Structure formats: C-alpha cells, structure tokens
C-alpha cells in the first residue's frame, strides 16, 4: 500500500518523495534553536529580527542560506553525490590543509577561511564529504569489510580529516569523526572493537576514581564471580581471562602515568571535575569557578528553570549573559532556563524521534551507498547531540561541539542541513535506484 503510493508519486519533481516527517522535525529544531538564539542575544535596543548586526538576525540569514543549499541539493541529480564523493573528499582535505597557510584565527583556533561576508569552516564541510566518501568506499562492490586492508582504508578515510583538524586546535570537531565508526559497525565491522573501546573508557575512569589496586581487585572478584555462578555447561578458558586481567592491570598503571605526566593541569582539572576526583571542597570550588565555570553556570541556569521555566525572554541568567557561549555551544541551557523541564524534555524527545526516524529511513534504503551514507549522517548528528547536551547538563567534560540545527553559526547550520538533505534526496530516489 505504502509502496504503491510512493510509486504513484514518483514523477513529482524534486520534492515529490521527500520524507516530510523528517523535514518537519528538522524545521521544528531549527525554529526552536533560533527562538533561543533570539533570547540569548536580544539586547535592550530592540532591533528588527532582520537586523544583521545582531546574532539572531545573522542566524536568520544563515537559515536562508541553508534553505538555498537545500534547494540546490534537491535539484541536483542524486547520483551526482555518489559519483563525485571521492573528489569532494579530496577537495575538503585540501581545504583543511590550506588552513595551515591561509587560515583565519578566531578565539584561538585556526579553523576558518575569511570570505569577507562570512567565515567558512571547512571542518564542517569535511563532515559531509567524509560521510560521503566512506559510504562510497564501503559500498564499492570490491570492498570487503572483513578484509584487514580494507578496514585500514576505511579507518584512514575517517581519521585523515580528524588528524588534520586536531592541531587547529579543535579537538571537539576532531573527536566527532570517530562517530563514523558506527557506519563500520553497521556494515559488519566486528562489534568487539566497540566492546574493547567501552572497557577501555571504563578502566580509565575507574582507575582515576579508585586507583589501580581497587580496579585490579575488582576485576579479579568479577572473574571469580563469573566462574562461581556460570552455568556448568558454559566453558570459559582460564588463560585468556588471566591474560585480560594482566593487560587491564598494565593499562590501569599506564593511565596513572599518562594522567600525571602526559596530561596538562587543565586536562587534569576537567577530569577532576567530571569524575568528582577532587575531594577538597575549597579546591573543587576553585576548579568550578575557573575551568568548570561554563558548566557550573549552565547547570545553574538549567536548574533555575524548574518544571515550567521562567518563560520566553524571562531567563535572568540568559539575559545576564551568565553562561558563556550561550548562543553557540551552550544554547541548550537557555532552553532549560526559559522553557524548563517541559522544554528540555521536549527537545530531547524531538531529537530522539528525529534520529529514530532517520534510522528507519536508512534501513529502508535499497542502495548500499544510501544506507551507509545515512548511517554516517545519523552517527555524526547523534554524536554532536550526545556530546553537546551531555556537556551542557554536566554529564560530560567540556568539549566544544555545536548542537546540530540549534547552535548559532553559519557553517554548522548550512552543512548540517546539506548533510541531512543529501540523505533525504537519496531516500527520495530509493525506488529508482533500487536494484
């Protein structure tokens, strides 16, 4: 039924089979984001919303540009993206390299090209092209994900831009590229890599919190418990378990070394705050007011919103500019203060539904390239969303990445929109290209 109707509208131009549910969710997120940018950047001298000297005016302009970008994407033949994916990728790598020579420094990071009217951030573009290039490589008929060399190629595609972005320095954006591993997992990359990653993170955190001795004791007790309560039929070889414990112990020891000797104090402070390592109340307060200032202020702002929030344009901490970078990375704290729990929960639900819808769309693709690209899009967006909101509500350490569609910023909004709409364009053509 659904299929037949889709077929019947296949001839209806560029908008014909666009997934309108996703489009509406996208529009809602952009709208809510802009409302909050308006609130954070409103001054006493009430200027028109189209005044480009204000942040909300500029953002409105960027929304317009993003709309043009979307129109462009929708009118282009969908095979265009697959065909030229490699070239796009190479171009964006060149642009990233070019930053070392022509880059413009803003707030300590050389991440921009100055285009006169607009500062262009190639790392945002590279997210799109890397997703495309990865999908193109993986969907190639000759690529076998279980082949070690092909795995290496795939890793290179993902990590090359990440490595180029890291020294800008922009560790946040660099970290984002790791999200593309989810594409690999979806396509059969062994899942235990993910398990190892997870165990590493847990070992790292627990070592810092409780020390190597307790971690090793914990691991031994865990192993003994498993052996005591396992079903008799289940055979677990002893030697690899002991090996794993030894490796973990060594890792745990190295964590201490790295933390004390490789990390700088500011890094240590971030972890100290995040994992509540610092027990001295005075020092903790000091860290809160310096390195943790942003998080502290944003938590306070969100907290002060309560269930109903203070109301649109009534957020005292938002108006007082207490949360630094509130219009960009910390935009979600404005939602928390002015719209309360109702607002924050609504946004979380909107994002979740949006992502689940995208997964649903990705899974219905017949073309491997479309599905893989779709997974790339979803992974990138979810990772941004997870790191950003996690940081704003104080669950994760401070890592500067924008909240997709919400945060102020032209490059971000335009390329997130194009990222999404390339996928929607591919989706609208899924029946044509299906094999």
């Amino acid at each position, binding site marked *: 039924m659904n299929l037949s109707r889709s077929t019947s509208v296949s001839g209806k131009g560029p908008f014909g089979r666009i997934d309108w549910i996703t489009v509406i969710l996208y529009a809602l997120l952009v709208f809510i984001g802009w409302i909050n940018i308006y609130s954070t950047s409103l001054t*006493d001298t009430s200027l028109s919303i189209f005044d480009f000297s204000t942040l909300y005016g500029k953002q409105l302009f960027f929304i317009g540009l993003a709309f043009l970008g979307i129109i462009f994407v929708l009118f282009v033949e969908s095979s265009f993206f697959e065909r030229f994916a490699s070239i796009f990728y190479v171009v964006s790598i060149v642009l990233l390299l070019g930053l070392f020579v022509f880059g413009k420094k803003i707030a300590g990071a050389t991440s921009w090209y100055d285009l006169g009217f607009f500062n262009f951030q190639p790392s945002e573009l590279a997210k799109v092209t890397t997703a495309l290039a990865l999908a193109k490589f993986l969907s190639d008929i000759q690529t076998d994900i279980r082949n070690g060399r092909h795995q290496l190629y795939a890793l290179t595609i993902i990590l090359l831009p990440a490595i180029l972005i890291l020294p800008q320095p922009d560790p946040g954006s660099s970290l984002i590229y790791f999200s593309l591993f*989810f594409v690999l*997992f*979806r396509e*059969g990359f062994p*899942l235990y890599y993910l398990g190892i990653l997870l165990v590493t993170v847990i070992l790292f955190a627990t070592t810092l919190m409780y020390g190597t001795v307790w971690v090793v004791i914990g691991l031994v007790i865990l192993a003994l418990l498993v052996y005591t309560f396992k079903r008799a039929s289940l055979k677990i070889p002893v030697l690899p378990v002991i090996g794993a414990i030894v490796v973990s112990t060594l890792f745990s020891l190295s964590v201490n070394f790295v933390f004390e000797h490789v990390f700088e104090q500011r890094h240590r402070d971030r972890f100290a705050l995040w994992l509540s390592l610092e027990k001295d109340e005075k020092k903790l307060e000091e860290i809160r007011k310096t390195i943790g200032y942003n998080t502290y*202020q944003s*938590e306070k702002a*969100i*907290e*002060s*919103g*309560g*269930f109903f929030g203070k109301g649109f344009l*009534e957020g*005292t*901490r938002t*108006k*007082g*500019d*207490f949360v630094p970078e509130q219009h960009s990375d910390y935009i979600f704290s404005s939602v*928390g203060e002015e719209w*309360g*729990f109702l607002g*924050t*929960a609504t946004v*979380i*639900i909107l*994002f*979740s539904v949006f*992502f*689940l819808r995208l*997964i649903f769309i990705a*899974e219905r693709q017949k073309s491997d390239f479309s599905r893989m690209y779709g*997974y790339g899009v*979803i*992974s990138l967006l*979810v990772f941004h*969303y*997870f790191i950003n*909101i*996690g940081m704003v*509500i*104080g*669950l994760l350490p401070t890592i500067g990445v924008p909240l997709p569609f919400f945060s102020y910023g032209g490059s971000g909004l335009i390329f997130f929109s194009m990222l999404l709409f390339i996928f929607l364009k591919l989706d609208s053509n899924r029946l044509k290209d299906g094999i």
Partner: protein
Amino acid sequence: MKKLLLSSIIVIIGFTFIGRLSYLQLFRFSPDQILDDPAIKKIYDYPERGYIYDRDGKLMVGNQPAYDVMVIPRDVKPLDTLEFCQLLGIEKSEFISKMEKARIYSPRLPSVLVPQLSKEDYAKLQEKMRHFVGFYIQKRSLRYYNTHSAANVLGYISEVNEGDLLNNPYYVAGELKGRTGIEMQYEEILRGRKGVKHIQKDRFNRDIGPYKDGKLDTLPKQGKEIHITLDKELQEYGELLMHGKRGGIVAIEPKTGEILAMISGPTYDPNLLVGRERSKNYSKLHYDTIAKPTWDRSILAQPSPGSPFKTLNALIALQEGAIDPNTKFTCYHGFYVGNTLRGCHCGGGVRNLNSGIYLSCNAYFAGVFRKIYDKYGSTDEGMDAWDKHVKSFGLGDYLGTDLPTGAPGRIPDKEYYDKWYGDGRWAASTIISNSIGQGEVAATPLQLANMTAAIANRGYFYTPHVIKSVGNSGDIDPNFTTPHYTTIDRKYFEPVIQGMADVYNYGTARWLKIPGVDIAGKTGTVENYIRVNGERMQLTDHSVFVAFAPVENPQIALAVYIENGYFGARYAGHIASLLIEKYIKGEITRKDLETRMLERTLEHEYAKPYSGEPFKINEREW
C-alpha cells in the same frame, strides 16, 4: 543486533538526558532561589529619615546632604592628578592607594574615593567635575542636629552590625539604624520603609534593565516626623549650667509625665557623631572611662537619693497613721544607727513635720521611720508595708519610659536584708539610714523627678516619656496617658508639700527663691565613697535637689543630682532654681545666681581622687 545498536544507544541517551534534567530541574530546583540569583540585584531606595522636633515644634534633628566622590576605575581617563587631589583635599599618595583599592574591589563597579565632602568642597568640585571622567559625586543623607544638646536623649544612628542583621531581616549590611536614644526607640517610625527595585544584572554585574519590568518593585515609604516632649531651650540651658559638672537632671511636666529636659553631664555635641570624623570622635567619647560622657547619668546613675527621700517617709508615716503633722521629736544633733551616732545639721531642738522637712532634720526622720515599723507586730510586716508604699512611687524598678536604656534603682525589701544580715537579725534601727535616703536605697534622677511629680500631683504620676506625637496623629502609647496612683491618700500630701514650700521660705533653700513663683523643694546631701586602686575613700558629698513649681498647679517637677557638689542647696539647688525660672518665666532675673553656675566647675573635685595626693572633702569655701 547491529541494526538495533544505534537505535538503542539513542534511546539510552534520551533517557539518561531526561533523567539528569529531572534531577537538575525537578529535584534540585527550589522556588526561592530567586533570592540568591546572581542575575537579580536588589537596589534600595531609601526614604528620608523622619525629622525630630521639640515640644514647641522647634527642629532638633533634620537631615543634611553629604557628598561622596565615587569612582569607576575602568572609566577613568587620564587626568590632572595634582589638581584633582587639591580639589579633594587629599595627598597624591593617598589618591593613588585609594584608586588601587577601588580597582582591586572591582574595575566595573563604583567605589567611594572620598567620603562625605563638606558643602564648600562640594561646591568647588562640582564645577570642575566634568574634567574628571570616571568620577562622579553621589549624594547621601546624614543626620543634621539643630542643637548642640540632648545627645543622650536623641541618640545617634550607625551602620548595622552582624547582630542586627541576624535579628532583623529588614536590614541589609551598610544600612543605618538608630543605635541609642530616640533614634533607636522610634527607629521604625523615623526610618520609614525602603523601596526595592529589582535590577537585572549581567555577569559583570552591570545593570541591564529592570527585572520583570519592575513588577516586584516597591516604593519607599517616607519616615514620619516625631515631636518629642523635650523643651529645646530648657534642655540647652540646663546643659549650659552643667558645664564642668557631672550629674543628671530630669525635669517632668507633672500633669502629663512628659519629660521636659533630660540632662547628663558631661555630655557631648551630637554633631560629633556625624560626618567624616565620626569614628574618631566616637572612640574618644567611648574610651573616656573617667568622665564617661556617653553614660547617661540622668537615667543610669543610681546614687542614694538623700534627704528628698525624707518626704516619702513622711508621707508613708502619715498614711500609716504612725504620726500626725504635729508629732514631735527632739533633735540632739543626731541619731543612732545601732551604736553609731550620725550627725544632724538642723541645729537641734524640737521638730514637727513642717520644720523636720524644711530644716531636713535627720533625727526627726529617724524617729518617723521607727514609728512606721513600731506600728506593726514584726519588722517583716513593717518592711512590707513600707516597701509597698515606696514602690508605688515608681522607685526600685524600671519606670518603663520610652528610652532604650534605664536603671531600676534599688528599694530593699525584707528578702534583701534577710540575705544580708540573716533572718531575724535586723530591725528598723539597723536599716534606719533609709529614713534619710542614705543606706540601701538608690534611685536614678529620673525616678526622683518622677517621685517629685507624684508629690506635685498629690498622689499620682504618668510614666515619664519623651514621645509627644508621631506624624500628624497625637496618639501615643496608652501606657503614657494612664495615671498611676500611689498608695498615699491625697489629703496627706498637703502638710508635706507645705514643708517643701517652707524649704524655700525658711529652710535650706531660702536663698534660692524665685520672685513671684512659689516653689516646693527638698535639698539632699549624699555621702559617697569610691574605690580607687582598691582603696575605699570618701569624696565630697553629692548635691541633690528635687523641686516642683508652682506649688498650686505645678508646671514642672525636677530632680537635680550633681556629683560631689556638696550641699544640696549649692549646685543642685542653684541649678534647680534657675531651670524652674527659665521654664516658667522664660528668662532669668537673678543674674548673679546664673553667672555663678555658668562659671563654677567641679573639675577640681573630680581631679582629687586621681591626684595621688591626700585631699580634703566637703570644703566650706566654694
């Protein structure tokens, strides 16, 4: 599995986020956190403090503007430092250190650079102020005293301390509050209610407009003016007379209980506790532990009342029927306390009530006192009766005036003596010093004045008070308009008052008569001892005087107590006479008397015990 991986991660993240948000926004949220919201600042609008007028509507306390030079360090542009310092009247080094202090406090917020400029400096500075960018002048309101007197009654205001902040949530650090006297007692009336503005602040603490468009703001409520019962002229004149003397004077209008004057010597000019020199002056006053200028002797000093107390014993004896006005005692120049002879200056001979009072015969009153006790089967019963009568005159306990300090005086009762001597081991003769107002009785000048007012009223008094009216309404505490009756019947007052009138006619104060005004009074000469370096020494007697006038229809009743003034008729008598004339006639006819009081001081007496040399007391010559 691999298809569900990302979906489940998204769902888990969603739940984690919503969980964390419920913790923050539902669990940790508290509705009254607006109070500690750094983004909202309360700015207070202080109403002008109420003025204080005297009983005739003459201004006593008003307000004056003071000008603070403020600085916002960040806004300061290069300036001619030398000229500016000259205008401000400060040294360049001081200017530099103050600027540095202000910068450390906050570069963006105003700090006081020079507090409380005088009007003259302000006028000079104002014209040139525009040359000095980053500085401005802020007006403040200070108290202004239209008198150099009555510091003890008016009191002063000072910044609230931690205790005030703890006890009264109204106050905010840095605010002013009445600290003593009327300023303290009528604090809430005088101060009014400050208005509050809620200002939205940014993270640099700069104003960025009203919070919620001023919906929570309140307007200041003006402080009310009050009229007090003091007679400004009488008060000022009394303080003039007290020059160089220590002691207390209280004058009361008997028919209302209104305090006309309340003088403590030495005192200080209330203007000393205003302005730039305030703390310096305050320390100076506060640490003068010998003269104690801040200690209000009119309500805190509790000397023995001396002979004026005899009138009370006479009244009690009459009421108890122990004597009648014609009961006679013969004076052999003294009386016995136990086995000790105490002298009498009356000249000796047969005394009745009238001459006993006007000659202040000690022996007569010792006899009277014994008679009161003789009427009863036991000393205890006699003591109870005597006690009840004395206390009905407002002695022996706080009077309940509307001044924040006070002292109870002392009227001993049987428990007091039981403790002192042991039950049954004392009798009327043991405590007979009380008959002449020595011994264990003690009273403040205020209590003595009130006692005199009760005698003037022939049997009742109103609680003495200083409040006359608040704002436009004449209503004051009903406690102050209810008469308190003594236990003595009206008819017994006349013979005693006649005796007091004869004090002026034939008695101890016959030199102090005022032409055309009938006065009734009683002198007192009070022996006193102090300890200096642990050594007990007797000093020149205190001079005490109580009086009221005119005898019929009394307008003023007063008590004067002058430390080491010797005979009651000397300093206290003179001052009482002058004050009565001043109050009733409005002018002084006996210039010789006035000149004597204005010129003479008792500094030489006060210096004696601290001189380290042997000294004579009660010198005849003066």
